[in-house]
């Protein structure tokens, strides 16, 4: 009879009830646990959150490296523009953004919505055919403790404007009453020139979730982007690739590149991809927020700081140092058994957390790397796994990157692709833009 097993289990429970309790050690452990998490929170605050678009084909990354210097006076002047204070931070990393402010290519707004506890005010918008940067303020009479912004969405005539990535900062949780924030919204398709009416919907969660709706109309015309069709094939470090097109928008320059499928290496990041003018002025990669997307046709689009407002006579596209990894170097895991089956042979990568909906890894990169380095995952049938979100952060010499999946509905083992990796090939590529 199984009564006997029940009896044994009860017997064991009695034993368990008699084990000595290390009261003091446990109190210390509790304090340490709270401290550990509070430090974790501080780290998280500095990280940017991304939302993956519904279309599994598009992929984005975060980076937070270079910064260009601007004068304190300029920063001061920008800060005094209504709602433009958060833009100062942006400008420090992006001279295209600085040019936007210099050329007054932004629109001030004053649209608010409140739910009793919070008021959200739209302060200003920078819009072009590629996307929109939205500056807004969150006000709360009680001060914000740990607010969490959920998917902001843009609508036109009640229809969601499809995006290929949204990035935004967490509102700060330092108890301030007023908090200025930015949202970067990247359009999946170029915005039609006649669209001027929008509605921003967003959810703010602090305990309860509040829903906000902010309709607005843009009065200034949206600038027409300039497109260069190049289709030039170049070779670097023995790998072939085709620079297909370069599109110049006010917010950014988009470089569309297709790798040769016969290459022995996967090219991951074009670190020093840049535009150069005759006089040697350089527009380099965008190094903050979303910096690239992966297109459905297998090509990739990288974002450069924009020269839209400075159009020199002669402009060249250049690059000389790329991150690349042999195609045989892989990360393969089984999320059900928790087994790590393959990692790159240089031993720099470690899997730190693994569950059916989360893969978190740690990579020895040095302190200056700054890329969210995991791209996406495919299951054992070659099906791309639906991503819910991804994030990255840096602690000392290690970069961390995670991917969360919408569900565990895929077959193991899975292969995770890299978006960046500290392994390089070098050469010199120069293409003239006509």
């Amino acid at each position: 009879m199984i009564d006997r097993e029940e009896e044994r289990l009860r017997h064991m429970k009695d034993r368990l009830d008699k084990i000595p309790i290390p009261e003091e050690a446990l109190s210390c452990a509790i304090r340490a646990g709270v401290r550990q998490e509070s430090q974790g929170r501080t780290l998280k605050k500095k990280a940017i959150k991304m939302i993956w678009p519904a279309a599994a084909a598009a992929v984005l990354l975060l980076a937070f490296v270079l910064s260009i210097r601007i004068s304190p006076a300029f920063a001061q002047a920008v800060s005094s523009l209504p709602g433009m204070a958060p833009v100062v931070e942006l400008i420090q990393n992006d001279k295209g953004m600085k040019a936007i402010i210099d050329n007054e290519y932004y629109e001030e707004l004053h649209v608010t919505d409140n739910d009793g506890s919070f008021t959200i005010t739209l302060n200003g918008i920078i819009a072009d055919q590629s996307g929109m940067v939205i500056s807004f303020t969150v006000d709360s009479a009680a001060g914000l403790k740990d607010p969490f912004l959920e998917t902001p969405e843009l609508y036109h005539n009640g229809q969601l404007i499809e995006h290929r990535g949204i990035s935004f900062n967490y509102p700060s949780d330092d108890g301030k009453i007023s908090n200025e924030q930015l949202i970067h919204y990247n359009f999946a398709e170029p915005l039609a020139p006649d669209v001027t009416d929008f509605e921003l919907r967003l959810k703010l969660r602090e305990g309860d979730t509040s829903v906000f709706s902010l309709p607005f109309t843009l009065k200034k015309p949206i600038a027409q982007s300039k497109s260069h069709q190049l289709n030039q094939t170049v070779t670097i470090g023995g790998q072939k690739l085709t620079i297909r097109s370069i599109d110049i928008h006010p917010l950014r320059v988009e470089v569309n590149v297709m790798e040769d499928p016969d290459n022995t290496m996967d090219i991951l990041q074009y670190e020093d991809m840049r535009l150069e003018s005759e006089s040697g002025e350089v527009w380099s990669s965008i190094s903050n927020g979303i910096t690239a997307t992966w297109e459905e046709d297998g090509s990739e689009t990288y974002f450069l700081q924009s020269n839209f407002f400075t159009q020199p006579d002669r402009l060249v596209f250049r690059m000389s140092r790329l991150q690349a990894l042999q195609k045989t170097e892989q990360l393969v895991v089984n999320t059900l058994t928790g087994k790590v089956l393959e990692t790159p042979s240089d031993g720099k990568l470690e899997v730190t957390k693994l569950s059916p909906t989360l893969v978190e890894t740690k990579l020895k990169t040095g302190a200056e790397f700054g890329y969210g380095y995991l791209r996406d995952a495919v299951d054992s049938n070659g099906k791309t796994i639906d991503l819910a979100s991804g994030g990255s952060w840096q602690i000392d010499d290690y970069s961390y990157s995670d991917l969360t999946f919408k569900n565990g509905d895929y077959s193991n083992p899975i292969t995770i692709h890299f978006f960046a990796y500290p392994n390089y090939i070098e050469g010199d590529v120069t293409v003239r833009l006509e």
Partner: protein
Amino acid sequence: MEEKELVERSIRGDAEAFVSLMELHKTSLYRTAFAFLKSEHASVEAVQEVTARAFRNIRRLKEPAYAKTWLTRIMINYCQDELKKRRREPVTDLIPERIAQSGDELLMLEEALLALPDPSRRLIHLKYFEEMKIKDIAEIEELPEGTVKSRLHNTLRTLREFINGKGGRSDD
């Protein structure tokens, strides 16, 4: 302060209230950890990690009355992950202490419990060690009550088979 208030304050980010809440449940959580990990050191560490995880996710605790159940669930998940990790990277210098004593009939039971699949082990733990009602187990495991009952029954049978098989006995 009542537990309900501690939970509400914790949700609002009050670290001191959260420490008090954990103090209320530390003994029970430690026992849970010990039932799985069988080592004082590992169980204290488990309480630290579970404290961090619970503090991080306290907002997901919708009903203050279920704080203990919720914490227990986090602890069991942590312990089962730890055991998996140990299986992956065997640590030779760590000899687990035992709840059973040598020559004890409970030794066999411990081994049998280790051999159970995670979901079955959880059901046994919740029913016999946490002494939870079938109804509550059904709720946290998100299973119908009937399923919990039949799985428990089957698991007990598996335990018996394991013990009898190993011990070569068939007297019951």
